[in-house]
Every structure is written in C-alpha cells, then in structure tokens.
C-alpha cells in the first residue's frame, strides 16, 4: 500500500515537473537561442548548442536551487559554460567566421525585398559583433539576445551593474560606427 501511495505521489510530482519544465522551456528557449546566435554564426551549431544547454538543464533540474539563483541566471550560466566548452573543443576557426551557406538566411531571389535587406543587415551586424572583444560580445549577447537586465548580467559575469552599463553603452556606440562604415 505504501509503495502504491508513493508511486501515485511521484506520478503527480513527475507531471508537475514536466509542466514546470515545459513552461520554463517556452519562456527561456528563445532567449537562450538568441543569446547563442549572437556568438555563433552557423545556425546549425546554434541549434546544437541550444539543445545541449537544455539537455544539461534537464539532467540537473532536480539540483536547481531557487534560493541560490533565479532560473534565468542558472540557465544562462549553463549556456555560457556550454559556449566556452564549444570554443575550447572547436579547432576550426571557420566556425567563428561568417559562413554564408550555414547562416540559414534565405538569399532566394523570390524573397521580398524587405526580407533581403533585413538578412543583409543581420550579416553585417554579426560581422561587426565578431570584431568585438570577448567580454563585449558576451555582454551584448546577454543584453540583446538573452534580454537580461544589467543587474542580471552583472551577477552572471561577476561585474558591477554600473560597469555593465558603461560597457553596453560604449559597445553599442562602437557597433553603430562599425555598422555605418560597413554599409558604405
């Protein structure tokens, strides 16, 4: 009887975990994906890394302690570490360079003109971002890709909130100028 009771309880707990994970996935997967896409230009690799991040999160979901960190901080820490592992393992420099074939951007002449212009701008922006320092790329990715506040970014990177604000402002100015030069 006790074992049956406990099995019923664990069934309900399992269903609860599944529901919670589904909701967290819906909220954070696009942000994690976009964060990684600021750092990696190959869309296939972006998908692979995003998958790895969530597989790791799933494996360790029972160890997540909300008292220690918010879920966004936790999942983005996993994302950062996974990216670092990827860079460490990747011996091919071309994964850092623009690979037009695998960008996943449609250059079909059948696309509306607006779509073509947008795709070109995305390529130019990613090219400019790749010229930034590692820290600048990281902060820009977390801000615009991960949609994080300066405070959250500061907590992840171990910087002060003020410092993060300064770096974002200066980096965006730098990107603005690079982008303008690239478009000429």
């Amino acid at each position, binding site marked *: 009887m006790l074992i049956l009771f406990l099995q019923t309880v664990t069934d309900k707990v399992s269903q609860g975990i599944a529901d919670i994970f*589904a909701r967290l996935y819906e909220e954070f997967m696009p942000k994690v994906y976009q964060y990684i896409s600021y750092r990696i230009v190959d869309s296939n690799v972006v998908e692979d890394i995003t998958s790895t991040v*969530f597989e790791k999160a799933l494996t360790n979901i029972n160890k997540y302690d909300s008292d220690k960190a918010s879920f966004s901080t936790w999942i983005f820490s996993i994302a950062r570490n996974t990216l670092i592992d990827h860079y460490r393992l990747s011996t091919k420099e071309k994964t850092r360079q623009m690979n037009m074939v695998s960008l996943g951007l449609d250059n079909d002449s059948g696309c509306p003109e607006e779509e073509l212009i947008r795709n070109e*701008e995305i390529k130019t922006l990613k090219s400019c971002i790749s010229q930034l320092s590692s820290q600048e790329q990281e902060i820009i990715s977390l801000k615009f890709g991960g949609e994080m506040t300066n405070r959250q970014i500061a907590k992840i990177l171990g910087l002060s909130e003020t410092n993060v604000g300064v770096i974002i402002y200066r980096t965006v100015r730098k990107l603005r100028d690079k982008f303008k030069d690239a478009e000429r």
Partner: protein
Amino acid sequence: MTGQSDKDKQFSVILDDLLAGKQVIPPVGDEDLRTTLAFALKMASLQCPPSPEFAAKLQARLSQELMAQEAGKKAKPGFTWFKNLLLDQPVLRAVAVFLVIGLVSLGMWRAGIFGLINTPPGTVLPTGTPAITVAPTTSPSATITPARTPLLTVTGTTTRPSYNPGEVVQIGVTLKNNTNNALLLEQYPPILSVMREQTRQPVYTFAIARKNISISRGEAVSYWWTWDQRDEQGKLVPPGDYYVELEDIDFTGQAVKLEFLNPVHVYINSLTGASIEKSLFLNQSVTDSGFTVTLQRLEMSGGGFWVYSSILPAPDNHLDGQTGLNATANYSLDGSWVKDTGISYRQYSDIGMNYVWFVPEPITGTGNLTFTVTSIGKWTGNWQFNIPLKG
C-alpha cells in the same frame, strides 16, 4: 567624467524601456545618445528567433527524456528504487523519517520498554519477567517482476501539456528496436487515432501514405502528426481530455501490438466550457497600415463566440512577442453598442501571426456582426469586417 557617467546611466534606463516596448521620448540635444539608442533598437529588431520546427522538435525530445528519466526511477526494483526516491524528494524523506520514528516508538511501547524506563530505581521485578522481545517487523516483499522486454519501445509526446481550442497539436511517436537484429516494419508509420477520454471512442484517425521501413538494432525512428483539433466531419472537438492510440503494426507478417510506455494525452483547455454550435467560414481580408488581417472563421456557442484570424506580415518588432503583442478589437451586433473584445491569444508562424479573440457573449439573432481590429501592437488602423449571420 561625471557627464559621461550620467550618459551611461541615461542610456541604460532608456534602453531598458525601449526593449520592454514602452513609449519613450527620445533625448533632445544629444545627437550621439539619440543615434546610439536608435542603433540599439535596430539591433534588437535584427534578432534571429529559433524556427518553430526546431523549437517543437527539441521540446518533444526533452519531454521524452524527462519521461524516460522519471520512468527509469520508478522501474528500479525494491530497495534501490525506494532509496532513489528518498534521495530525490526531501519532503518524502522527512515523512519517511517520522514514520520510522513512529514505528520504532510503537514497537517499544508494545514491548513495554517505556514502562520499564519509568520503573523507580530499587524496584524488584517479579521473577519470570519475560525478556524484552521486539516482534520482528517484516516488510512485505516488494518484488517487482521485470516485464518482458517488448520488441519495440513506444514513446509519445506532444509539444505542450495543454492547448487552447483551435491550436495546432503536434503529436510525436518514437519506436525503438529493442532486439539484437534489424526489424522490418510493414506499413510505417502506424495508424494513429485521437481518442476522447470521456467516451473512449476515436474522434480522428490519421490516414497517411505508409511504407515499409527497416529499423537497425537499437535504432529509434520518430514520426510527427499534426492535428487541427477537428473530428472526421471537420468540426472542432470540444474541450477536454484526449489520448492517442496506435494500431498494431505488422512485423514480418505478424501483428505487433504498440502500447505506449506512458499514456499520451492531449488536453484541450476550456475557455467557457461550451461546445461549438455553429461555424461560419469567412475568408475576408482588409489591409491597412501595412498589415493584412484575414478573418478566417467565426465559431459560436452558448457561451460566446471565437473569431479566428491571421495577420500578415509578422510585425517586425518581435520583441513584443516575448511579452505580449496585443491586437485589440471591438464588435457590435446589429448596430448596437460597440464593445471591446475579451480574451485573446496568438501564435506566431514563419510569416505572420494567427490571432484568436474570444467574446463571452453569445450571438443571438441573425443580423450582422461588425468586427473591427483597431490596433496591432503599436500600429493603429481600421480593419473592419461585416459578417452577415445567417439563421
């Protein structure tokens, strides 16, 4: 330096407001700050969101892994399973500790130990006091007979635990070969039926082209079905609990039963609990402010009505899509008072947005419904539709 530092702060505050979709008055007099903010907004608009296919497939795979994880914990026999359960669930651990303390205390009381402890020193016990014995506790043997491994492990999942009425449901099924040989499956994928829990009867059966396939030893194959929540007559099914069943699949001339490792349910949420009584297919389009709104159909019930639409193209600023891009609308029946619509929900597609409004007011009469979309995110317009209601 102070001036520079103030500019950093001003930029951060304004940027956060802009990214949150708030209306911001651009700074006057500081061209550098203004152009930097404008570029930041441009950067935010050039994001590359994940494709819906990737998002759905990854979610399905993670759901399967989660189910397998949970099933793996339950399958471990006897003490190992129990030990893992206690390690994973601190509340259960605490309950188990109290139970153990309670059982031990009960045993001690039954054995009279508490009485002996309370005996004053120097008391002479009568001879023949029985030795203290504790009745051995025997736990029921929890033998779990391992099930015979089937030829195929069948797992299934949906992309979400529940769906709103009218939303597309994606159902994924994976068959894994547990044998040491390749398996030739005839007529793959298997026939899948969506069953209504209340009646245990099928509401829809997928009839798709099938072929023979071979699955290598240890290999798994997956297939996805897309269900639009309609039954065999094309009518939207009522909200409630549904599950899926597979027909037997032929393996080298023999029928192999396909049973899911865990049941696969599709829960359709109820907005009003009412079932659809009447549907009108509309296909009316209006273009304004660069957007084309197409009303696709009107579903009516005793609890209210639903208006299904598509909006093309997708609004460029998908930032709002993360927090809630609203398309507001109002309606009027037979020229009466104009009222705002109520609950609405949206779903992004590759090229646009599917939008559904629900109005908790039943439509009576057979005159005319005027439905007007008044804004799409920050864009205003007049997308007005006149819908004749036939009796």
